[in-house]
């Protein structure tokens, strides 16, 4: 019975099957509508199933004996069903039950045989026929008057079912999901556009993530994912390296730091080239920690005059190849872009760290000529120095003692900060080590964007940074990148190392290459830069949320020394064993918070706000409704007041009566429910009410018909009823408290 079913593929067979099904259908209809009308053709699906279940189709060529047996089985089954039906007392429901049994058989076949059923027209016809018969029976069984809906309707459904091709595979929702995603993306872009163009209106006062050229206060910020920059690069977004612990080849994403508000700095280029020249670094060595690359930057939903440039930038050109000086007078518009050429350093490379740790051994800058440096630059890195800086700028660099500006300013720094700065860097031999020690120390602090509001400091001045740092280091013990960066800047300055606060983006490229990469406002970041004498500005990552330079190192090693044994590297540069004193903050127990707790608190805060708002809104609505009623009552004339009093009285009577009382607008309906002691008086008031409603005023100006005494009487009665209600049904008094005046 459950053998595989042959699939009809040849055209003649298919036509034959169509004719077969129609013949069956005609037979079913005929049976239904005439001779066996009372039986509702119950046994026909069973007969069809019997044909269908046999090993092979009835009309295909095969063993006659087998066919005969199948036909006999079908006939017996049909007869049994007919017999049972004839003897059954409740034919309608039995009919339905038999049909359900047929359905169950077919469902079992589907799950039992599975895919072999698919593709046969006979199978489809059987399923479709069973469906319409089941629907017909279901309709008859559940119908209000048990009458049969015209079977012609179900035949029409069957015709459509036979025409529509069924699928072998489940529904493919991918196109729909993709379309929904596209729609969601467009909606998001539209929302960002609106937000971008409304930015000038200065709507709202809360801070959210994103680049800002203004001073930051360190107050709480809210997450935002608006696309602010679009990056294009020819580089791979990942690099491979051998993990030292496991020995396996690993893949890591590249990160890029984009600095805001600074133009290409030639003195930085001279510093770097001179340092490498002085350390006798050749092209092969340099490639271990340095690469020259470029990045196309386009502004999206960002409004600033600043140029957002990758760290180590040496040249910026616009779309026509002209140099960009970075002195914009107006905010850049959406679509503004440029190409930045920059030197990408691996500050975590032990080879570079070795250079950074020994800049003191460098000869004087004046000992090298522009020509010598140009030749070194070109021969070693292919950089034609004259393209980026001329000799005059070179001379200026030679004459300059160090970075200009107040990078050592420590105004406002507290005594405990000074003590801490000394404590952290105790035992460090050089500036770079001190920087790493401070970085390591700060990374112990908890990251949190929920820092409250009204912070004392800001990043706009040294005093502001001092206050912000002091609060972060000793009071709250938690913060986000702004707090870490300002604290490190101040601690470095207190150690005599020039340092500056940098604001921009930290973008981590995805694993897969794309045409362009969206830098969202959530990537906005602040970090410190320290001036390492002899090398220039070097960035650090004290924010505990992100990896340090060492942790995201390229891990490159010379080809002839894969183990890196010959590299003159200080061991402490690799694993960052900088001694870091434990963090001590005044309210550390509360201050060292986890993002999860922050999230929970934020949710609780929102829940409380919503609850309070809803309660307040409800209170205001009720209070407003009462106020409106009182005002209306007071402003009304005697007639109007009496009408309102009567309305209240009827409401009270309805509430007091035990029986459901519909308001038909007839006061006589209420009379049976009136309290005995007020019966006469209330009837009098009702009479006055009818007098107001139906009296005809000759002048048509609505002159009053109620006297002062009558009005007074109605009011007193209404209040008496109200008191009565309060005494009897105090539990529900709040419902009718609206009536109080």
């Amino acid at each position, binding site marked *: 019975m459950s053998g595989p079913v042959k699939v009809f593929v040849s055209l003649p067979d298919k036509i034959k099957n169509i004719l077969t099904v129609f013949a069956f259908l005609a037979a079913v209809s005929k049976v239904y509508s005439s001779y066996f009308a009372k039986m509702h053709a119950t046994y026909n699906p069973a007969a069809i199933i019997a044909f269908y279940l046999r090993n092979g189709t009835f009309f295909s060529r095969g063993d006659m004996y087998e066919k005969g047996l199948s036909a006999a089985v079908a006939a017996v089954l049909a007869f049994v069903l007919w017999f049972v039906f004839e003897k059954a007392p409740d034919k309608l429901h039995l009919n339905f039950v038999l049909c359900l049994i047929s359905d169950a058989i077919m469902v079992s076949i589907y799950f039992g045989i599975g895919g072999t059923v698919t593709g046969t027209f006979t199978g489809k016809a059987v399923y479709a026929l069973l469906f319409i018969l089941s629907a017909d029976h279901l*309709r008859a069984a559940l119908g209000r008057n048990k009458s049969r*809906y015209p079977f*012609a*309707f179900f035949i029409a459904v069957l015709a*459509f079912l036979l025409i529509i091709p*069924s*699928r072998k595979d*489940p529904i493919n929702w991918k196109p729909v999901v993709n379309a929904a995603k596209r729609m969601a993306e467009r909606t998001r872009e539209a929302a960002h556009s609106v937000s971008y163009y409304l930015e000038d209106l200065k709507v709202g006062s809360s801070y959210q993530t994103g680049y800002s050229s203004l001073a930051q206060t360190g107050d709480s910020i809210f997450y935002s994912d608006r696309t602010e920059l679009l990056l294009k690069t020819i580089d791979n977004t990942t690099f491979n390296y051998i993990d030292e612990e496991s020995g396996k080849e690993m893949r890591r994403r590249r990160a890029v730091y984009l600095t805001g508000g600074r133009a290409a700095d030639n003195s930085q280029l001279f510093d770097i080239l001179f340092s490498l020249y002085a350390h006798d670094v050749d092209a092969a060595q340099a490639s271990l920690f340095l690469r020259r690359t470029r990045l196309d930057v386009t502004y999206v939903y960002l409004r600033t005059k600043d140029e957002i440039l990758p760290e180590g930038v040496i040249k910026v050109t616009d779309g026509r190849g002209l140099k960009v000086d970075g002195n914009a007078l107006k905010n850049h518009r959406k679509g503004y872009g440029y190409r930045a050429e920059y030197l990408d350093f691996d500050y975590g490379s032990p080879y570079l760290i070795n250079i950074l740790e020994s800049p003191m051994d460098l000869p004087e800058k004046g000992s090298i000529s522009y020509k010598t440096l140009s030749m070194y630059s070109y021969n070693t890195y292919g950089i034609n120095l004259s393209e980026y800086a001329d000799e005059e700028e070179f001379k200026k660099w030679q004459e300059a003692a160090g970075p200009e500006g107040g990078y050592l300013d420590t105004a406002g720094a507290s005594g405990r900060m000074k003590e801490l700065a000394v404590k952290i860097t105790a035992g460090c031999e050089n500036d770079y080590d001190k920087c790493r020690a401070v970085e390591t120390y700060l990374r112990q602090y908890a990251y949190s964007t929920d820092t409250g509001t009204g912070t004392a400091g800001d990043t706009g001045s040294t005093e502001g940074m001092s206050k912000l740092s002091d609060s972060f280091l000793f009071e709250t013990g938690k913060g986000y990148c702004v707090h870490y960066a300002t604290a490190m800047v101040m601690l470095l300055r207190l150690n005599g190392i020039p340092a500056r606060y940098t604001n921009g983006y930290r973008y981590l490229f995805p694993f897969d290459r794309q045409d362009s990469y969206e830098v969202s406002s959530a990537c906005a970041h602040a970090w410190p830069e320290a001036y390492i004498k002899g090398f220039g500005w070097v960035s650090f990552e004290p924010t505990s949320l992100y990896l340090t330079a060492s942790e995201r190192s390229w891990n490159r090693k010379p080809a002839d020394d894969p183990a890196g044994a010959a590299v003159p590297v200080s061991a402490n540069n690799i694993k960052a064993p900088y001694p870091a004193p434990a963090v001590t903050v005044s309210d550390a127990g509360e201050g060292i918070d986890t993002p999860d707790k922050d999230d929970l608190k934020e949710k609780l805060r929102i829940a409380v706000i919503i609850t309070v708002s809803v309660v307040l809104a409800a209170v205001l609505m009720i209070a407003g409704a009462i106020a409106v009623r009182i005002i209306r009552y007071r402003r009304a004339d005697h007639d109007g007041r009496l009408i309102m009093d009567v309305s209240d009285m009827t409401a009270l009577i309805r509430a007091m009566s035990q029986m459901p009382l519909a308001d038909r607008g007839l006061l006589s309906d209420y009379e049976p429910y009136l309290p005995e002691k007020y019966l006469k008086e209330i009837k009098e008031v009702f009479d006055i009410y009818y007098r107001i409603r139906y009296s005809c005023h000759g002048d048509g100006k609505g002159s009053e018909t109620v006297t002062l005494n009558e009005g007074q009487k109605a009011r007193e009665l209404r209040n008496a009823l109200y008191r009565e209600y309060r005494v009897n049904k105090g539990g529900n008094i709040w419902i009718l408290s609206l009536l109080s005046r």
Partner: protein
Amino acid sequence: MSIRFDLKGSIVYVLLLTACIVFASFFGGLLPFVLLYGILLLLPVSFIYIILNYHYLSVFQELNVHRVVKGEEHKLYISFENRGLLPIHEMELILHSDRCSFSGIGDNESISIEPWNKVKLTPGVVCRYGGTYEIGLKSLGFTDAFGMMKVVFKVPYSFRAIVSPKVTDIANEYLDIENIINSTGSKSTIRREEIPGNEMRDYYPGDPLKAVNWKVSARLSKLTVRIPDKLDTRTVTLILEASNVPERMQDMEYLRRRDYFLEFAVSAVWYFARRGIPVYVIYPAGKITERQVDSYDSFPQFYSDISGGIAYRSDDEKDRMHKLVQERRQAGDGNETRVIITEDEWPGEGFCVVAG
């Protein structure tokens, strides 16, 4: 055509459809897709089926009388013919039961019609209001097999009846007041005045034949009557200012007002006619018409006009009537009592205003 969905049925349908979609999303093959398509097709196929039912359905309805009188039962003939291949199942008959009472058929009663078959119904109908409006079968409702959707069609051939108002004593109360004020009705002596001489004037409809001076009429080639020796010192003019509501806005409220207005008008005129008191009636019968009614003989013509439907042929005519009413209210002569019956009451005024 309007489509209404049954909330409960629709929810069950949507749940079933969702279940089928989920089934077909995880399993391929015949069973899930036949189920899905089957459930999905139920509503559209039902709709097509209903549209075809309606397309091949002919409905005709008529009354056994030409003119309908309010409150009297008439026989309504309704015939249905299914000219299509598909049977019509339990078609709901929605009647104008807000304005008519029916006997022999209930509102929302259902009938089924087999293909190429006819069904005839002959219910009794009683019109509740005077005026011109549609009566009988209002619309037809078709429901799908599972009662999820009901499609209602307006009957293609609706029957518009002219229902004559009834003469009652509805106006007596107002006219009694008029009588008390002006003392011109039958309850008080009619003030008359002696007219000296034998003055002639043109014949007006309503003048008694005996007043015609045949000699003078023959000479002048127009009917001329003697001015009676005694003239009523006061005349009564009834001005019927009907509203001018477009047909599409004639709701039940309008029908009730119109019914009251017509009944009041014919009753008021009958009040005078049966007493032989001449009354001038000004009313819109397309254009503004003025007619004198003073007897049983002259009343039927007026009643016929009123029953045929009072209306304005244009908005200008309505404006003219309104202007006329305002003029007659303010500047009537001392010998005339004007009873102004306004279908649309003016602010601060009643339905009937007596001025004089």
